């Protein structure tokens, strides 16, 4: 690996390397033999474009690498390249992602299997580099598949899985892989790099089929359509994202077979839940302080577990409702905000409540916690404080439905 130090040559063909989450995504792009990549700098996403750029410059990767004049063009270019049959990669952060919003809107509508990395970053203003999840969440209603990862290995593996799922003819929907700014994009960890042969076996070529934009297949893409057409088009996209649930399961099963790594339930990770009375929930790298805190509290005899959502879209509502119904109370930590939403909770908490409300099992109380905004550290004492409140709720004591944690007050 030219971009990282090879620390160990394992048996067989799998290497390991000390790389950041962003580099892990770049390595996945190389292994997936991506055809067209567009770039426009914004921190922390720019680390990915730098690594890919280096791979191309070093002759390790063969692709069209286009630096656009802004994020809107950046996403439009790959959208068109994908329509013409190219495997594509793109990405952005914070307001850069928002600047591309029109392109992000039409991408799922046109059934483009674009893979994008979102280096999660607070939305301006104020200008801030740190992580918040509102950027990626802004497309949650549009047909994007959204996944959050919490370590570099998972970033690499999930990128490969995302290509397989998105480019499946049953799906043809884009997928954004969210990597928390700083905590994942800028910290290095030892990652297993799969072999090219394994990846080739796992990832078939992208075949756009009858939707291919090519002179030999004359088609019109995205004509004007009035009220006689729009509902049917939206319904088709619902069908695709519904199918995505099953195709993701298939992909993880196949991934385990070929690469020998299992992620268990693809949609959410359960940590120390088997005997737990209460659980915390969250997405992305806040899993680290939460897990540490849970181990500490376990030593103190508190039966606390953790459920980390990976796939936010599609949202495995039934599975999650079934899982959460086992516990006496749930505390959802949102690294995002949803101003004026029901009970002024974060996005994840609101969706978890919806999933539980319509689930068939028990409906434990769900407390919402807003924490870690703008990249602020979520500390172990923060998690203990959250847990204490959730425990109170589990005992039937009324707690505020939304609490801000780690706020100067």
């Amino acid at each position, binding site marked *: 690996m030219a971009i990282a130090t090879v620390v160990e040559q394992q048996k067989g063909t799998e290497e390991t390397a000390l790389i950041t989450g962003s580099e892990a995504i770049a390595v996945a792009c190389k292994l997936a033999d991506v055809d067209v990549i567009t770039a426009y700098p914004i921190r922390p996403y720019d680390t990915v474009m730098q690594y890919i750029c280096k791979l191309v410059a070093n002759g390790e990767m063969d692709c069209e690498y286009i630096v656009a004049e802004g994020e809107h063009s950046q996403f439009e270019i790959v959208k068109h390249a994908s329509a013409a049959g190219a495997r594509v990669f793109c990405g952005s952060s914070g307001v850069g992602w928002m600047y591309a919003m029109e392109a992000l809107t039409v991408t799922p*509508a*046109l*059934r*483009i299997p674009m893979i994008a990395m979102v280096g999660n970053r607070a939305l301006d203003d104020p200008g801030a580099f740190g992580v918040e999840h509102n950027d990626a969440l802004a497309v949650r209603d549009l047909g994007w598949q959204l996944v959050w990862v919490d370590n570099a290995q998972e970033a690499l593996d999930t990128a490969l899985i995302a290509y397989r799922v998105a480019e499946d003819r049953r799906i*043809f929907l884009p997928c954004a892989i969210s990597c928390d700014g700083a905590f994942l994009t800028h910290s290095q960890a030892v990652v297993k790099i799969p072999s090219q042969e394994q990846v080739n076996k796992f990832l078939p070529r992208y075949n756009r089929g*009858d*939707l291919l934009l090519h002179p030999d297949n*004359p*088609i*019109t*893409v*995205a*004509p004007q*359509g*009035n*009220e*006689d*057409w729009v*509902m*049917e*088009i939206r*319904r*088709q996209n619902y*069908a*695709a994202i519904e199918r995505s649930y099953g195709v993701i399961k298939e992909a993880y099963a196949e991934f385990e077979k070929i690469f020998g790594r299992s992620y268990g339930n693809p949609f959410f990770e359960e940590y120390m839940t088997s005997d737990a009375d209460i659980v915390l929930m969250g997405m992305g790298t806040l899993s680290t302080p939460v897990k540490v805190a849970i181990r500490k509290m376990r030593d103190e005899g508190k039966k606390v577990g953790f459920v980390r959502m990976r796939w936010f879209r599609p949202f495995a509502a039934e599975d999650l409702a079934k899982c959460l119904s086992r516990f006496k109370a749930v505390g959802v930590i949102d690294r995002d905000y949803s101003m004026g939403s029901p009970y002024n909770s974060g996005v994840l908490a609101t969706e978890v409540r919806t999933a539980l409300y319509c689930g068939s099992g028990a409906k434990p109380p769900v407390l919402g916690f807003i924490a870690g905004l703008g990249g602020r550290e979520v500390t172990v004492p923060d998690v203990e404080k959250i847990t204490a409140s959730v425990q109170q709720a589990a005992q039937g004591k009324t707690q505020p439905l939304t609490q801000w944690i780690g706020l100067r007050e």
Partner: protein
Amino acid sequence: MGRLFAIEIIYRGIFQKTLARNISRAIVLAAHKEGKPGISFGRYGDSPERNGIPAKSFAIVATDDVTLEEGMAKYEPKDVDITICVDDTLAKGVESWAWYGLQPVNKLLKPGGTLIVTSRLEADPIIAMCHRKETPYEMAILKAIPSFSGLWVYKDDHTDVRILGAIAKILPDLFSLKSVQAAITDEWHDAVKVTSAARAYEKLTTVTVKPTQGNPEVPFKFDLPKWHEMGEGIVIPSIPAGHKMEDPGTHATGGYKPDRNPTFKKFSTRTMRPVVDFDTCIKCTLCWLQCPDSCFDVTPEGLYDANMEACCGCGVCEAVCPVPNCVTMVNESSFHDNASQWVAWRKDKTNYKGWVQEKIKGHGERSHGFRYLGQYEEQVPEMLDIATKG
């Protein structure tokens, strides 16, 4: 529940947008004079900002608010008491941007309802243009030069107020002539317009159209596909390129006829069509090159046949043709089918020549737009005649 009145105005985009709005507004205003609530609206899915595209406005009036709400709970009325057709060439049918297929002009009329057509023609040729309807209806011809204007200008020729007077005569339960006149006074402050409305009221007559009368053609229809039958990704396969033409006499093949959209014909946009004199054509290709709708089929001998399934009647071919009277735009009401002129010419050239001469001389007037300075003034005597005689 009280009584609900529905009136539709079928008009041509841009040219008659203001006219249609004036009529539907004034209907509601006149009804308001009698304490009847109403609403006036344009069909949103139409594209009234496009030249000549058939479009609709509606006025819905009721005897009380609750009944009006019943009428408003629909996107548009499913049946109407009166259909107003402000361009007689629309009698051939309406294909809007808002739906698929050709809709007969009398489709929404209730049994015994009235179709008001503004025209220079008599009722009979207009009835012949309209598709047959299962139930009898009334037809009223309001003598008028088709009132066309533009997006930024309005030809204030009293067509709107005359129609209002006609409605008071046809549907006295909706409003009286007195209410119409009061509304006109409020809206336009013009005593002459009040007189025009009264004249139309006095002179209007109707004839009954029987189910056996009219164009027997079954209008073009199109079934919308179900969501799972549609292609994904908002992708539509292209229309195939086209094929050669066949000479009706010799059966020799050659030339080129492009295949066209089978589900959107759009020829009801046309108010006039090119009549081509193939004997004088010099095959310069200009009409074929410049036609914005690629409506010209190339014949085996290299002539250009305007295909009436595709022509929107814009008149560009006439404007670019360098040969005098080789391409002449003729009012659409002079024709009863969309048959190929070239085929007719190939079958009998002498007969065709006579046909061309008759069409050019008899009905050469263009339906919209003026070609030279002073042309509008030439119409004034006819307009005055209509105004006084009705």
